[in-house]
């Protein structure tokens, strides 16, 4: 598979998961703020933004954060590269570039989700964000379902699932590491019920343990449960398995594949540690998990996604044939593709505005469909992908 496509699939997995997890977290958070009138809304919102890695400069006149502002920032804001809207947009942009590598059902589902976003955002802003969050969760579920039911279990699927898994680990680690909501009047204890509900794990927890939520059990469930798919353990194991399937070779000793080595270390470090020990240094452990995730992502890129960017060529010697002032209108009409970054995106967007079946004047009908113009450059730079992190 092309490295560029593998990379895009990986990021599609991450973006969709990011959108879904953000929706889950926000949903619970907003609900929580409404339910508990005694909560320090500003502080809770700042904690959430910190967890999501969004710089906390309040746009409100009084400098205070509230649920509406946070929702705007994390869900609807197109300028925030990790918002739900931005994530889905980026997922769709990546999918557009690899639409022949995923099933057409997946592409259509993602495209439909994207097309409906403006409407859903408007509804979310108007009548409250719940329908929007539900929409995002449902669309993510459809995508996940189609991923699993329409894609062969080949490398394409694996890269997508690795992306999904790493993002899931990262988001859960973020969520846990800031101890999202200090319970009212109960010191700095983490509100585990909220955390469980963010991960759709509350009901699963209750069915598993048949008792009230206790910190140790909740932490164990979210970190270590072998069966619950949104636990860190499960997500790490899934990613490890996919990596192993990508390259099943084992050496005599050690682990040749760096991403697998890092994730294995993350997993065993959780798996073979007492839950009490984990809880006593939860912050440190979660930092390890996050670091491991980033390292695994970097290792994956280094091994599988080498040189997927466009290269700018420098000319030696004289300009070549085309540099001549030959008055070719074809050539002049095209914007010269610029270097990477926003300029290229803008120029590329211009190119994209042209006629899809470029046409012409038909009186005496002219050239009818013109031909492809060579210009146009892909967006979705890796920097944009990592922004907000």
């Amino acid at each position, binding site marked *: *598979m*092309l490295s560029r496509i593998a990379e895009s699939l990986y990021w599609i997995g991450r973006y969709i998961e990011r959108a879904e997890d953000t929706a889950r977290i926000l949903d619970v958070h907003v609900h929580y703020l409404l339910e508990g009138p005694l909560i320090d809304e500003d502080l809770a919102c700042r904690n959430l933004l910190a967890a999501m890695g969004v710089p906390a400069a309040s746009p409100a006149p009084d400098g205070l954060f509230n649920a509406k502002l946070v929702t705007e920032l994390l869900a609807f804001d197109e300028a925030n590269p990790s918002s739900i809207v931005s994530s889905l947009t980026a997922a769709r942009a990546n999918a557009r570039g690899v639409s022949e590598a995923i099933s057409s059902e997946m592409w259509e589902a993602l495209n439909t989700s994207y097309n409906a976003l403006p409407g859903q955002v408007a509804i979310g802003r108007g009548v409250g964000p719940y329908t929007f969050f539900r929409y995002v969760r449902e669309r993510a579920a459809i995508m996940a379902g189609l991923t699993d039911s329409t894609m062969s279990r080949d490398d394409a699927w694996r890269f997508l699932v690795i992306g999904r898994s790493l993002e899931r680990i990262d988001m859960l680690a973020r969520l846990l590491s800031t101890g999202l909501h200090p319970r009212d009047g109960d010191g700095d204890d983490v509100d585990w019920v909220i955390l469980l509900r963010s991960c759709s794990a509350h009901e699963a927890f209750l069915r598993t343990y048949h008792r009230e939520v206790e910190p140790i059990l909740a932490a164990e469930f979210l970190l270590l449960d072998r069966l619950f798919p949104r636990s860190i353990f499960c997500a790490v194991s899934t990613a490890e398995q996919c990596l192993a399937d990508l390259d099943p070779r084992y050496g005599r000793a050690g682990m040749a594949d760096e991403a697998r080595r890092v994730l294995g270390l993350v997993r065993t470090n959780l798996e073979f540690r007492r839950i009490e020990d984990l809880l006593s240094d939860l912050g440190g452990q979660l930092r390890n998990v996050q670091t491991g995730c980033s390292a695994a992502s970097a290792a994956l890129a280094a091994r599988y996604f080498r040189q997927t960017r466009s290269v700018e060529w420098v000319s030696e010697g004289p300009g070549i044939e085309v540099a001549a002032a030959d008055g070719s*209108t074809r050539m002049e009409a095209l914007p010269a593709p610029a270097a990477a970054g926003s300029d290229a995106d803008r120029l590329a967007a211009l190119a*994209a505005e042209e006629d899809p079946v470029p*046409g*012409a004047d038909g009186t*005496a*009908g002219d050239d009818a469909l013109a031909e492809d*113009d060579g210009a146009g450059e892909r967006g979705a730079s890796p920097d944009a992908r990592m922004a907000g992190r």
Partner: protein
Amino acid sequence: MVDRTAVGDLFDGYAPARTLGTPAWDEMFEAPGVVRPAAAVLHDALTSLSASEFEARAAARDRGFHDRGITFQLSGEERPWPLDLVPRVIPEAEWTTLEAGVAQRVRALEAFLADVYGTGQILADRVVPHRLVTTSVHFHRAAFGVEPANGVRIQVAGIDVVRGEDGRFYVLEDNIRCPSGISYVVENRRMMARIFPELFASHRVLPVASYPARLLEALRAAAPAGVSDPTVVVLTPGVYNSAYFEHSFLARQMGVELVEGRDLLCRNDTVYMRTTDGEQRVDVVYRRVDDDFLDPLHFRPDSLVGCPGILNAARAGNVAISNAVGNGVADDKLAYTYVPDMIRYYLAEEPILPNVETYRLEDPEALHHVLGHLHELVLKPVSGSGGYGILIGPQATEAQLDAARAAVAANPREWIAQRPVSLSTAPTDVGGRLAPRHLDLRPFAVNDGTSVWVVPGGLTRVALPEGGMVVNSSQGGGSKDTWVTVDGRRVPRVRAARAAKPGRREVAPDPGPALSFAGTEQQQQQQQQQQQRPAPC
């Protein structure tokens, strides 16, 4: 015969267009109210539709295109691909001529390209002047000496034709660089079959869906010598290119990789693509990147979408580039005027499809005539495309005419002049009613080296404004599904549903454990029976 007076609202007020004075040829009506035999069945089917039924199908069409991402940008907005709901019907008898004419043209153009990038016999024989080639900006000397393994330089051609007032098809332009639009031909058909299944039940329409398979065959046939199972890729400028949908469509339908320039790498005059398993050799590149952007070593060094070294890899015989580099020398508007001569010279045949009457302005007599009659002619720049710089004499102002005269006098080689052709019309959906609108046609041809195959039909484009002849979709143009019908009469559908094989027991899906109400009822009945049982003695 259907009672014409009961015709549905759709055709109300349908009258032939007289855009350029004389009435245009209409694809459906011979005369007002008189339907052409080939279109009769279609006409009847349409008249039986109510306006609301028609509207519902239009909505289904837009939703379908939108969901599948088959859209185009119009003033910054993403619109569904404009497919008009009324297909254009070309009877097979007419098509056979058109098909032969298109194939003939492609064969002549192939011969011409092989000649001018080789010994230049047609130039030596003075059938075509040297300057047509040597002063063309599309004659790429860098492509000189690149010999396609199977001799084919035009794997794909799009030959634009229009039907004139006399009902004849005229060639307007040859497109043998990277002609686009075939994906819309296939998608239009697919959409029509989805929303108008009953029309297909009453017509035998020649299928278009085999195009990707034909193209793949032609591309594989172009592979370098000695490569038995070639790796074919489609090279796209990227997702922001206006034809990206088509590139993606073709790659998917052919089951080959869609690559961008950055995915490719030339080393030692061999092309590779970067994969997660390392570098993999590429044998055939169906490129949808213009010559100027294809190879920064030979052409624009600032191209970010090309692959440096690819042209020399082709020269070394290690990769096939399709369509070949430098084909533009044969499809500019000046070369167009010589195609009939090429057909006679190379094929010793008479052209099946005529050109539109064209004046070469480098000829002083022609120049004099044209300058005097500019208000009656259409003036086109030789190397322009996309409709830029075209002057339609009858519709131009005095000032425009004066400016054009000056431009032509200054550089006659850069211009040609043509007799204006009033394009034919066909019924087209305009706000829920059908009205005549002008259209053209781009048939697509595929050359695999042994024969030239032409997709039955092609892309019909429609100018939507009344009297408009601009079929460009960025200026509000639309498209039509183009049907080559084997016979206008009702013909039973060929593909009958296959009968289930006798002897095979069809097993119903496992209904699962009994959870239904019926099940509970049974249990309840049992219980009742047990309860009703007389007590044991």
